[in-house]
């Protein structure tokens, strides 16, 4: 257990952790939705910062993009839509519930803390094992190696989760997604500037993933954000709904399964990637995954916001199509 500089805990860590804890408490405690959502966004960003501190850059990026970004977008969008009448909250019952919650929470935390205190401090041997196996994975960046080679089944299943979440969401709101017709000048500017930038960023993240932090998920998230903004700004083809979008979403998953099949044919075990063509396979599958995740996240957002868009878009004229889709 190495001792860090002046005190056993770096003051910066303590600051970040404290901040994270406070924002968490705020996100939970604030009764009104708007406040809670804002607190949650801040919590998300601070969390990304914390991941950086814990030497997990990939996760930090993913957190920022997915946790803070898309999830945040979804939550804000939910608020913006409609605030149901708060049921009459009789004070006494609320207090009782919080008291019970606090008490049980305290007990759980105490027990959990004692259990955690028994964990040893030395690192698990899994890390070094994985790191020395990276050379034989076809990519140099360990996280991508784990994600797309050692434990690629997890990734496949995770994509399936995203895909089927999108399919489910689309089914639940299939009929009510409207296109945004007249975006107005400000939105048009945003579309012109930001959307291409985001797409470029997504592309870079994707390619970088093979050697430094980055990769399919982060790229997908950014691409998703780009699509959402494009849609909001009236870029009609960016409307991530309907058959075409579904095909894109499903393509990623089917490709991955196909890859598993190819692996089986080539090497005799599912999803095994021979060193010779591992890199190419990983890069190819990553691109497809990025597109798939992007469109899926966009669909989730649109499905969530579907009904009220129609209200906002009752103005007649269709905005001319802006720039090609990525």
């Amino acid at each position, binding site marked *: 257990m190495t001792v860090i500089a002046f005190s056993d805990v770096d003051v910066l860590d303590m600051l970040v952790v404290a901040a994270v804890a406070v924002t*968490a408490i705020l996100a939970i405690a604030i009764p009104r939705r708007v406040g809670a959502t804002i607190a949650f966004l801040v919590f998300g960003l601070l969390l990304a910062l914390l991941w950086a501190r814990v030497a997990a850059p990939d996760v930090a990026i993913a957190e920022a993009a997915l946790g803070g970004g898309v999830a945040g977008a979804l939550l804000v969008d939910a608020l913006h839509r409609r605030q149901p009448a708060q049921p009459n909250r009789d004070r006494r019952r609320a207090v009782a519930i919080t008291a019970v919650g606090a008490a049980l929470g305290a007990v759980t935390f105490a027990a959990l803390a004692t259990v955690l205190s028994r964990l040893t401090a030395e690192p698990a041997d899994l890390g070094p094992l994985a790191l020395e196996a990276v050379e034989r994975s076809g990519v140099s960046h360990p996280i991508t190696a784990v994600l797309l080679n050692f434990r690629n089944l997890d990734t496949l299943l995770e994509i399936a989760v995203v895909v089927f979440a999108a399919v489910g969401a689309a089914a639940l709101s299939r009929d009510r997604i409207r296109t945004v017709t007249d975006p107005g000048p400000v939105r048009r500017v945003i579309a012109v500037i930001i959307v291409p930038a985001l797409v470029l960023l997504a592309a870079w993240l994707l390619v970088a993933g093979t050697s430094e932090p980055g990769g399919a998920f982060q790229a997908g998230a950014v691409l998703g954000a780009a699509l959402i903004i494009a849609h909001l700004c009236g870029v009609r083809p960016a409307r991530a709904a309907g058959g075409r979008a579904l095909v894109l979403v499903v393509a990623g998953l089917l490709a991955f399964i196909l890859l598993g099949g190819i692996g089986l044919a080539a090497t005799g075990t599912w999803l095994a990637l021979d060193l010779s063509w591992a890199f190419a396979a990983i890069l190819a599958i990553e691109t497809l995954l990025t597109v798939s995740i992007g469109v899926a996240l966009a669909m989730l957002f649109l499905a969530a916001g579907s009904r009220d868009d129609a209200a906002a878009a009752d103005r007649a004229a269709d905005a001319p199509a802006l720039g090609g889709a990525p």
Partner: protein
Amino acid sequence: MTTLQLFMYAGAFILVLGVAATLLVRDLIRRLIALNVASGGVMLLLLALADRGDGEPDPVPQALVLTGIVVMAAVTGIAIVLARRVEQLDDDLEEVEQ
């Protein structure tokens, strides 16, 4: 109190806070927020365990956390869609059996 313990206890605290809130809050969106907070707590715990020694952190838990985050995002997405339908139909929030 080492950094590891700091992070772990913080993770535990956030997890318990989130779980308790998820299970006790009636408002759907706040319940969803609490769920995301709780998942954040678990991820913190996992990452703290990944970065135990002073060498390079263990990539496997980090990959697991990445997957976890994506999954939580998907869950949040579909939860929001469902919440939206529930609120549009101003359905009885107290989902007891018919």
